[in-house]
């Protein structure tokens, strides 16, 4: 399931709902991204997440479909927020449920890595010098590329 929303989410309730009633699930893996008050050495107060409505949902849906194809998952969930966020706020939740531990852990890792390079979101950080658009990191491309290599079997 995909959700793109301005509102916060209840992590415990979301994770519970993911496995609720399905006793074939052996493990639930999750990752929650939070707003840090220190990015690349600069103190930031808050940030605003801009996104591309329509394409965002399309890309997240495709990323999720890819995970469901690669791993035996009983359920998956991606929630990504947009709008203004304060330090400590939840930005994103990725969660996967599977009969098997490895499938849950790997697919969760895959989802957040791919989302970081494919989902059209942009962070505008409040800094002492004003709003700064965050630069994409090469390390994110490398993290996503790792999964591409695995898919090629190389």
């Amino acid at each position, binding site marked *: 399931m995909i959700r793109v929303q301005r509102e916060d989410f209840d992590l415990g309730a979301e994770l519970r709902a993911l496995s609720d009633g399905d006793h074939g699930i052996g493990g639930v893996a999750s990752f929650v991204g939070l707003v840090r008050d220190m990015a690349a050495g600069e103190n930031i107060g808050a940030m605003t997440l801009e*996104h*591309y409505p*329509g394409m965002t949902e*399309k890309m997240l849906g495709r990323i999720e479909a890819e995970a469901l194809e690669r791993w035996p998952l009983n359920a998956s969930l991606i929630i*990504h927020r947009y709008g203004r966020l304060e330090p400590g706020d939840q930005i994103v939740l990725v969660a996967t449920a599977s009969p098997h531990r490895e499938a849950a852990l790997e697919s969760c890792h895959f989802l957040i890595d791919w*989302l970081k390079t494919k*989902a*059209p979101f942009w*962070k505008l950080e409040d800094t002492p010098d004003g709003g700064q658009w965050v630069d994409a990191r090469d390390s994110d491309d490398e993290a996503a590329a790792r999964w591409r290599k695995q898919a090629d079997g190389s």
Partner: protein
Amino acid sequence: MKLLYFAWLKTKTGVSEETVSPPAEVETVADLLTWLKQRGPAFEDALADVEALRVAVNQEYAEMTDPVTAGDEVALFPPVTGG
């Protein structure tokens, strides 16, 4: 053709959304960018570094050589930084 600008593409051009009618010789993403750059210094500056740009045509990532046509929604933005 509908154009969308995000993040610093929006800030630099001062445009978030517009409808344009490029001339017939604009057949690819690369052609479109070349045409857009001629619209003034703000566009020339924003689109100067093609490597720093990402383009989506009808909400799909596109290459420079991909075609664009009159009914398309074309979005210009920097590499994504969500998550």
